[in-house]
């Protein structure tokens, strides 16, 4: 037993401690703001970030359609819960994720012919097409006049997870499970195929990697993750399902999360999400506290400039994203002084 414990690296101890805090301590804090304004969006955006990272960071296919797949997931889950009331909630989530995956495959087809900027434009088509469909076919929103539907109550195994803490625990469990799966996937043969395609598509094809299959698989799995993220975003965080919310802006935010957090990294998606959710909030509060007499619109504009500047500075100082910044910090703590190359 002790021998087994000893084999756990300090890093894993840190992970275990983090899990204990996240599942056991945080939900007991009873601090609604933390759940409803910070943790829930971070978890949902982090999961979407993982989804996009599988596609962009690992398989090298750039996409600005993440929000569209989130919308497919959210509306899919809503319709499953509405029209098939007997189906357990989690099953309807998975089914909705599979629909998002199917839509992802369809919009991934152009990737077999298109690369780089051209592929970017074709994923842009996904973004506009999905929003158009959801806006113009009122069936998807149960013929609600305004096209906005209130998310139904989520009852899992007879337990209503309607409280802030309940929704947080549900999201955390789903997100961690999927993050672990993504971590395993990235190190499997599938993940290696993706990396091979990203680094050199011709070489990958020559050594026998089926480019066709790998690319479509990347689109499918990435869209599945985005779909589930969309469900969490709409059902657990905003608690309204509305097609306008899944806009191009959101797609870009997810892309920024991946770039800032670090490409080809699972942790990076969460770090990026934390930064993109909390930095504007911190700046807003800082601005409100220090310049309380100034017009709040002026403060807001100044903050936008500042967030942009901070991101530019960060990317110049650390082009590999927050992940590599934190890794070096961690090494410095554990290993002490790093050998300096000069």
């Amino acid at each position, binding site marked *: 037993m002790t021998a087994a414990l000893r084999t756990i690296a300090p890093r894993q101890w840190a992970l275990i401690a983090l899990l204990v805090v996240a599942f056991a301590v945080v939900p007991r804090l009873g601090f609604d703001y933390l759940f409803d304004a910070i943790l829930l969006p971070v978890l949902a955006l982090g999961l979407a970030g993982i989804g996009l990272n599988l596609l962009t960071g690992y398989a090298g296919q750039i996409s600005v359609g993440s929000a569209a797949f989130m919308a497919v997931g959210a509306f899919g889950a809503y319709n499953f819960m509405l029209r098939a009331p007997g189906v357990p909630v989690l099953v309807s989530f998975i089914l909705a994720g599979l629909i998002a995956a199917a839509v992802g495959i369809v919009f991934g087809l152009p990737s077999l012919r298109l690369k780089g900027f051209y592929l970017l434009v074709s994923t842009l088509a996904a973004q506009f097409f999905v929003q158009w469909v959801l806006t113009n076919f009122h069936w998807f929103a149960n013929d609600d006049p305004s096209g*906005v539907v209130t998310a139904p109550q989520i009852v899992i195994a007879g337990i209503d997870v309607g409280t802030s803490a309940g929704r947080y625990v549900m999201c955390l469990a789903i997100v961690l499970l999927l993050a672990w799966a993504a971590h395993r996937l990235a190190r499997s043969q599938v993940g290696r195929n993706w990396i091979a395609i990203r680094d050199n598509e011709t070489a990958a094809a020559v050594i026998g990697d089926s480019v066709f299959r790998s690319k479509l698989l990347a689109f499918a799995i990435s869209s599945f993750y985005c779909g589930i993220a969309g469900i969490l975003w709409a059902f657990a*965080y905003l608690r309204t399902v509305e097609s*306008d*919310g899944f806009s191009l802006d959101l797609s870009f935010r997810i892309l920024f999360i991946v770039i800032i957090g670090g490409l080809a990294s699972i942790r990076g998606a969460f770090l990026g999400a934390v930064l993109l959710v909390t930095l504007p909030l911190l700046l807003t509060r800082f601005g409100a506290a220090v310049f309380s007499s100034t017009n709040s619109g002026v*403060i807001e504009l100044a903050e936008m400039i500042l967030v942009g500047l901070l991101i530019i500075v960060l990317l110049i100082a650390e082009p590999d994203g927050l992940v590599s910044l934190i890794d070096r910090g961690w090494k410095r703590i554990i290993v002490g002084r790093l050998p300096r190359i000069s």
Partner: protein
Amino acid sequence: MFNPFSTRGSVIAAAVLASAMLTASAFGSSATAADHGEEYFPLQSYRVGPYAAGGTGFFGGFIDYMNLVNIRDGGVDGVKLTWSECETEYEVERGVECYERMKTQGKPGPAAMNPLSVGIAYALLDRATTDKIPLITINHGRTDTTDGAVFPYIFPLLLNPWSEASAMVNYAAGRDGGLDKLKGKNIVVLYHGSPYGKETIPIFAMLAQKYGFNVTEIEVPHPGNEQESQWLQIQRIAPEYVFLRGWGVMNPVALKTAQKVGFPADHIIGNIWSNSEEDVKPAGAAAVGYIALTDHPSGTDFPVMQEIIKRVYGTGQGNLDDKSRIGSGYHTLGVINGILNVEALRIAHTHFGDKALDGEQVQWGFDHLDLDDKRIAQLGATGLLPPIHVTCADHEGAGAVKFQQWDGTKWVVKTGWVYADRKLLRPLIEASANKYAADHHITPRACDKVALK
């Protein structure tokens, strides 16, 4: 070794310092607006983004009126008004964050939420009801929240979207000589691609069927700065009227594009969010003759506006940077919103005593909000807003508008109060509210039946 004077070292040092300051301010600022004996109004405002003209005008007017009450009367029955702003940019997720941030501020809690965004209001329906904070959606919102039995905390005061649609049809009919004259005519509804814009789709379809006119409803995607294809379609249909349900930049673009395709401005009828000076001035000559409905006529002649100019702007405490916007449509609506919030508070004071109240107590005030012509005259607002009588079951309370025409420099009011056919709409509102109640396992509270004229 860490060297604070190297480039990287200084970047890290600056980052650490900045984050320390940010964290300190984040925890330090949460106690700002909470003093004893003050009524706190959280303002989910928007001063940047595509709808900034509406946000700055409306929240400017709201703040100006609260300032007037503080300066002139020392507050409401001795209770001073306080507020703080949180920028939403009209985005739902930012609105939710603002709500969560502000709902715990103030002592004994916020009086009411006024987000001025249908999207945000939708996301807050549940939350505000659970937290027992009144949610005010003046002139907008989700129509069936008018049924106060199902939605005790939601107040689409003065005019809900369906009443607005009905009043527009009634006005068009009046202009042509009666509702029977509408038969066979073509009407186009050009609406903003948002929850707000879509809210009236089924009601126009219903009215078209009832009165025998043909309606085509065309969406303009948010934010609406490109409308060529929509207006070419309108040109093909050649309708009698275009009902413009716009918002922000969509309005002047609509008027300019209409001129381009040769559609006469005096056959475009704007709704309650297409009726401010900020909507027509950017369109220049294309806006001359354009008609819009209003329940908050522009102008600075009203006694209450004169007092704001004298006591608030005269002492340098006015909220609008551009003084020429005082008395514009958006600013006026903000002042009216201030009047309604303050009067609800005053009515709640008669029941709970003159002290700072929590949301649940202020809700009682809104539930009993009753301003007749006499009270409106005392407030110096005669002609500025219609009489409003809110009850337990009826959270709209008015449903009347005037129609005004833009002459190139100012709005000229053309009609008296034109009423919506609320009797026709009420059963639909109740049906929709009851469906919501059934879906969400809400037991409607007991209210007296609404007696509509």
